[in-house]
């Protein structure tokens, strides 16, 4: 009845059996919904009527002439760029500094990583309160003598997107720092010693030792940050709902508005597919550039 655990067949089947539950869950909750979204994007489904009419590429044609879609597209790129600069750039700098600090390292590390475990809705609530015109951010600016920079953060067309990107980075950068720290621990200390003997300054060591050694880790952090930033929804929705007007409208909030709030699920699905294609393309391009640099 049962296979001999030492048999060749059992040894071949075991990994498959162990993987099967995870693969089944992945297919059910990731692959199948993704395929469904692609299918809906070719329909005029309103999310209510059981009948879905197939309308070919009509939803995608609408995307090209939809002014708001392109506004959201541009905002999403600005949003992602800011988050990548903070999470990858600042994250690397902080990790490099932390790697050299031994005293109180655990406390600083915990402080930076703590926001990662806070629920996104709680993060949104905290920052919504801090960004009020008389909120903590403006009060701190006043106290430190930077009162001239006080801004109605959530109501300013010029500032809102950047303000929300900073809030999002605050809650996600800890993960980048942890990954960079893990990567830094794998860098051979002898390389730093050799650089020091050659007369390299700390900055030159960072430029010629740390950065090249961390290239694969940086790629992982970059792709994680990119995909995370593109799919963000909660913090924007819970603070501004894409406002004021549409100055913080990103593709995910626009998709939600069109699909779920306006019962235009077919078009919402097309926006979702566009988002998927953009993230995939950006990831492929980055990976290609990385490979080219390495080769």
């Amino acid at each position, binding site marked *: 009845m049962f296979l001999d655990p030492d048999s060749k067949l059992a040894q071949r089947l075991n990994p498959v059996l162990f993987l099967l539950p995870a693969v089944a869950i992945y297919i059910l909750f990731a692959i199948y919904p993704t395929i469904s979204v692609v299918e809906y994007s070719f329909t005029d489904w*309103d*999310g*209510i*009527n*059981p009948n879905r009419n197939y309308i070919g590429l009509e939803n995608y044609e609408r995307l090209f002439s939809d002014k708001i879609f392109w506004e959201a597209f541009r905002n999403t790129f600005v949003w992602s760029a800011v988050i990548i600069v903070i999470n990858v750039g600042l994250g690397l700098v902080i990790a490099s500094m932390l790697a050299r600090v031994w005293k109180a390292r655990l406390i600083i590390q915990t402080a930076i990583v703590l926001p990662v475990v806070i629920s996104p809705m709680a993060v949104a609530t905290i920052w*919504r*309160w801090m*960004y*009020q*015109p008389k909120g903590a951010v403006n009060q701190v600016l006043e106290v430190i003598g930077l009162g001239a920079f006080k801004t*109605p*953060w*959530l*109501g*300013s*067309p010029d500032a809102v997107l950047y303000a929300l990107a900073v809030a999002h980075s605050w809650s996600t950068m800890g993960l980048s720092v942890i990954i960079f720290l893990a990567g830094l621990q794998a860098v051979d200390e002898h390389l730093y010693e050799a650089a020091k003997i050659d007369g390299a300054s700390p900055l030159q060591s960072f430029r010629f030792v740390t950065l090249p050694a961390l290239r694969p880790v940086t790629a992982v952090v970059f792709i994680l940050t990119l995909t995370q930033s593109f799919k963000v929804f909660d913090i924007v*929705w819970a*603070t*501004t*709902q894409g*406002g*004021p*007007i*549409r100055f913080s409208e990103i593709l995910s909030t626009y998709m*939600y*508005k069109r699909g*779920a*709030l*306006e*019962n*235009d699920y077919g078009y919402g699905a097309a926006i979702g597919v566009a988002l998927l294609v953009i993230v995939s393309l950006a990831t492929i391009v980055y990976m290609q550039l990385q490979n080219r640099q390495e080769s």
Partner: protein
Amino acid sequence: MQHKNLTGSLLVALPTFLATPALSQTEVVVWVGGEPGQTTVYETIANQFNEENPGVNLTVVTNTSDIFNPALVPALSAGEGPDVFTFGTGPGQPAALIAGGLVADLTDAYYEHNWSQTIPEGIIVQTSSDGKLWSYGNEVETTGMFYNKAIFAEHGLSVPTSWAEMEAVVETLMAAGFETPIGLAGADKWPVSHWQSMIFGRYAGPEGIENVLFSDGSWTDEPFVQASARLQQMGQADWFGPTPVAIGYGELMDAFWAGEIPMTFTGPWVVGGGIEAAGDRISDFSVFAVPPFEPGQKIYPTNSIGSGWYIRVNSEHKEIAIAYINRMFQNVEGRVTLLDHGVVPVGPLEEALAMANMPQLSVDIWKAADDHAANGSVPAFLDTITPGTLTTVSYDGLQALLLGVMTPEEFTAAMQEAWAASKAAGEIMLPGGIAER
């Protein structure tokens, strides 16, 4: 032997276990709008209903409006979801649900339970189409200018009855150091829509609004442009403070109850929170009707049904759902409970009012509206009776008006464009009315 004893014990215990009320209860799910974790009056009445009907367990699930509909629609489409739920009323919001055959026809219940005794004709218009009743329009809601009597008294101010007096009140308050004389939570978008509904109604009158909603009127008609211009003018004069679109509703109401903002335009749903926040100082607050914006203009109180109660078309518990609706709105105890919580049910109130203990602030709101009831009323919440596409355009446009990046003409043109598109797509409900029997 021991096994036999155990099996025997289980066989004896099983019927007793199955007969326990918990297992024989009929589970009926109710979805209502509100803040999660906050007990609504509907939950209170559901608990009373459960006590009166031991075989039934009504479970009330509360969710905020921005995630309520996106969760509801897929659930109903999948043939699941709540047995009974609250949702927007006509002519815009429920059209798709009705067209999709997702909600039950309540016309039989209307005649069987004499709902005509409580639901006024004006509400039937917004809850019926094709001669059928689709929802029980529940409570009546209005909006008014909430103000801090203590601040007014301190600065020698009285309730304004003309626009000139209103301007004088705002000027005095600004001179006294109130940066925001009238609080407006523009960051949340929907509070601006309350101003829009009121001011559109004031300039266009009830006929002007109905002409657009149910006939061939246009949002670009002159009264709507003038109303939008007035709202923009108030914003640009800093009546709502320097940055209304940066302020959230929760934060604003906290500031209002704390006495940092003298006035805000809102509705009776804030009374419960106000009593909690202000405590004994709640008597410092009252409500007045915003005075006419122009000489000779009438005050039309805003009056809307908060939402309607719908029953899922394939619910197996329609009778219980109807009994729950009856317990809330047709039964005097239910009506008293609603009034005690500051919720005004549709229909005649004399009997329930005599028994109720309404918060004074709620009484003030209704008094402010009743004083002008003879003029006719206008919708309090245009955003709940128009399609989602128009709501999005209105919300964004109102913020644009306040920020001064859109003209009143552009705003009303954008509204009309969205409205015309919804009409063309059949997304609006036609004027209601129930077929005579």
